[in-house]
């Protein structure tokens, strides 16, 4: 878990003595029939870190987009420093001193990291020419402040999601804005980086800036923020000082009911091996990876970001090639590099990047549900629209997906609901082995426990699950067995009762006395 050092810092400046930096009230926004924001409200005081929490689809990102000038609200008012303002576009918002870190990284892959940070605001020298040297130095300085050693001169293409997020943060910091809005900046970060981000937030607040922080990890909220605003179904629910509230209250306000246990692990007795991986290797990425997943068992693949977990999953499924080793599913060896063969053998892979890999964003929700089951929906060689609809309806109901209309494009769904569609698309194939990469990244607590319940149910019905997660509590809560990867090699293989935070962490950072079962 994140090793937070601070808890509930006191506000830097007394909230009641200063005029608020930014006030948004009664903001409304609809997309066609979808009322994304019904009554959005938030008040940001100078020097405070203000958390905004809510379920997936509660309208948080929509609110952010309004503050960013990306969306024009259908109604409501926005004041900055007491002045009524309208943001015609992102540039206007930036000029007004509002700086945004968007939920999804928005980098220019072909440009250098420094250019990404300073695009449109590059330091200049005589003749309105860009001063590259200074630009690189300034970027380096910001990264030093964040404690990362990204080379400002490398191109952004190929950066890991975490590094991309760091560049986004650097971009926002470089603006020295009055208001810094961060939409789930920590979703892809490791504990150290999160900690550094919080340190930077503290510095910013000390300088009088207001920080708005969105996260589904409530512990982060309690570690770094002074006030918290809760939203539900596009509506403002409450704002409270952090010391006047607690996790249960917030969750109740978010979900509108009490939640049961977060990780509803039911004990099962594992059956026959479904997946057997032996000495799997691929040049320069991972090597000598062996483990087994049995019927009715959840095996978690743990490790630091970049340890090669996703690569292993993709190699098993056949998206990536592999140069060594054997993969057997239900006893039969899988050919390398052939996802179709893996699917036929009953393997399903829910990939980690739902926007690029999981969904065809511009296709209908229904068509996305059907995309992995096309052959099954075929009658006499032709696709049946009606059976496709039926399949989509069935799984949208089962997973309680919140959507406008089933034929709307998947891009209109909130992140969590998108994740459910990806899950549904694979569950519709009734797989015997489900590989889920980061099943709950960017998913709210309510949905998260639903996803966990779904997985748990599947396992009880005899499915084998290989789960990759960067969240230790999830790993510890859900897994029957934890396989830890370190730099592409198995650094530990623990049964449920052997695994705890420290053993896993030690293995993941490569310091363990190896215990490979």
């Amino acid at each position, binding site marked *: 878990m994140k090793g937070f050092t601070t808890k509930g810092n006191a506000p830097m400046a007394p909230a009641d003595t200063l005029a608020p930096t930014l006030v948004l009230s009664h903001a409304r926004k609809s997309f066609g029939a979808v009322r994304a924001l019904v009554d959005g409200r938030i008040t940001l005081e100078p020097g405070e870190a203000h958390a905004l929490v809510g379920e997936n689809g509660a309208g948080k990102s929509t609110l952010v987009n309004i503050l960013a000038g990306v969306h024009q609200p259908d109604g409501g008012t926005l004041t900055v420093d007491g002045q009524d303002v309208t943001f015609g576009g992102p540039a206007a918002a930036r000029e007004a001193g509002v700086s945004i870190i968007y939920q999804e990284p*928005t980098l220019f892959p072909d440009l250098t990291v420094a250019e990404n940070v300073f695009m449109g605001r590059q330091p200049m020298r005589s003749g309105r020419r860009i001063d590259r040297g200074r630009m690189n130095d300034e970027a380096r300085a910001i990264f030093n402040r964040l404690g990362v050693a990204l080379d400002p001169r490398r191109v952004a293409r190929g950066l890991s999601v975490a590094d991309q997020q760091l560049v986004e943060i650097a971009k926002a910091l470089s603006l020295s804005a009055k208001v810094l809005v961060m939409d789930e900046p920590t979703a892809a970060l490791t504990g150290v980086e999160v900690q550094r981000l919080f340190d930077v937030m503290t510095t910013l607040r000390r300088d009088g800036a207001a920080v708005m922080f969105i996260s589904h990890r409530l512990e982060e909220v309690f570690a770094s923020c002074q006030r918290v605003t809760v939203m539900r179904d596009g509506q403002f629910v409450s704002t409270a000082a952090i010391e006047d509230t607690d996790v249960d209250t917030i969750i109740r306000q978010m979900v509108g009911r009490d939640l049961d246990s977060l990780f509803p692990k039911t004990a099962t007795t594992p059956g026959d091996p479904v997946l057997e991986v032996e000495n799997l290797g691929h040049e320069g990425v991972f090597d000598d990876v062996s483990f087994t997943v049995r019927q009715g068992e959840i095996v978690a693949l743990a490790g630091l970001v970049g340890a090669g977990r996703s690569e292993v999953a993709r190699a098993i499924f056949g998206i990536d090639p592999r140069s060594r080793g054997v993969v057997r599913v239900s006893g039969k060896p899988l050919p390398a590099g052939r996802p179709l063969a893996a699917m036929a053998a009953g393997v399903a892979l829910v990939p980690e990047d739902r926007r690029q890999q999981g969904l065809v964003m511009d296709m209908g929700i229904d068509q996305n549900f059907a995309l992995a089951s096309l052959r099954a929906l075929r009658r006499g060689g032709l696709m049946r629209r009606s059976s496709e609809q039926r399949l989509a309806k069935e799984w949208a109901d089962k997973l309680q997906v919140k959507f406008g209309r089933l034929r709307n494009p998947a891009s209109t769904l909130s992140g969590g609901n998108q994740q459910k569609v990806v899950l549904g698309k694979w569950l519709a194939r009734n797989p015997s082995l489900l590989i889920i990469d980061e099943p709950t990244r960017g998913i709210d607590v309510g949905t998260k426990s639903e996803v966990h319940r779904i997985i748990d149910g599947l396992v009880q019905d005899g499915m084998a699950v290989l789960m990759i997660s960067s969240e230790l509590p999830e790993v510890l809560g859900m897994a029957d067995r934890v396989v830890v990867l370190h730099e592409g090699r198995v650094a530990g293989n623990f049964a449920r009762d052997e695994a705890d935070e420290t053993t896993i962490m030690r293995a993941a950072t490569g310091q363990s006395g190896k215990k490979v079962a």
Partner: protein
Amino acid sequence: MTSTTTAPKTPVPALAGATSTGRLDALLRAREIGIALAIVVVIAITTLKNSHFLDADSVQQILNGGALIGLMAVGETLVIVTRNVDLSIGSTLGLSAYVVGDLFAHNAIDVWMGFVVAIVIGAVIGLINGLVTVLFRVPSLVVTLAMLYVIRGVDGIIVNGRQIGASDVPGSFTAIGYKTVLGIPWLFILVAVVVIIAGYAMRTFRSSRELYAIGSSPQAAMLAGIPAARRVMTAFVISGALAGLAGALFLAQYAQVNNNSGLGYELTVIAAVVVGGVAIFGGSGTVFGAALGALLLNTINLALVAARISASWNQAIAGALLLAAIAFDRWLSLRVTRKLRNTEGAHRDI
């Protein structure tokens, strides 16, 4: 997941860059060097077969021949970098060349005005391309393909079966097409100046970097508040203007224009740009690379004849070499990417 306490807390000082990026930069630059090298190889092989290929005259021809395509490649690069494409440049060249020639034939303008008129014609066409693309958010390939037909048709209506010949054009104008200073052709100098200015500008000014940004990620460009519409429009206007200028230079170089002048140049220019290492889907590539690409294609064409290869084989060999050049560039950029990947790990702090 989540490293914790164990990670070294001290920020790694700004070390890594120096060495690894130095090499990287070199590699990236190698894309241009690679093309230059290819030109040298083609020349060398041809010279082995025919020692006169390197005579002063012949070198002038090599430099001059690629000039027009190179000039248009500069404009096309600007457009392609923004993830658009301009297919109308060949038609634009034809129209501007004819109109200027016609004005000369009627003694309506002097030499300098000839350039101005050519550039203005091109710029106006570029403006139309840009406006329609940006305003209606129509793919530029469709817009400029349509404009290709429209301009070629309008050109035909204006030309109406006439043509411009050497006696219609002032001698001082055609002189630009063949006169040299210190053995270097004027035409080449002129185009080289445009290339150098454009190449420098594309590295150095905010607005030009924004062109790359737009092509690299339109979404992110929007969020960064980049006035994409204006920038894309500017790229089209410049591309049109350069195609118009190329029209004037066409007239100067060949001293003859009919309605077919410039027919099919658009694909040659795009080929040059792609060979020059400009990503066809935007975001990366340099003006220098594109210009070198044009020079390479032209050198190949010259070399095939100079090496006494039978006329029937010219096209096929040119096509094969084009494919080879594209594949080579791909191989090179893959190597760069792999290098990037390998160096990346070093920068992470855990």
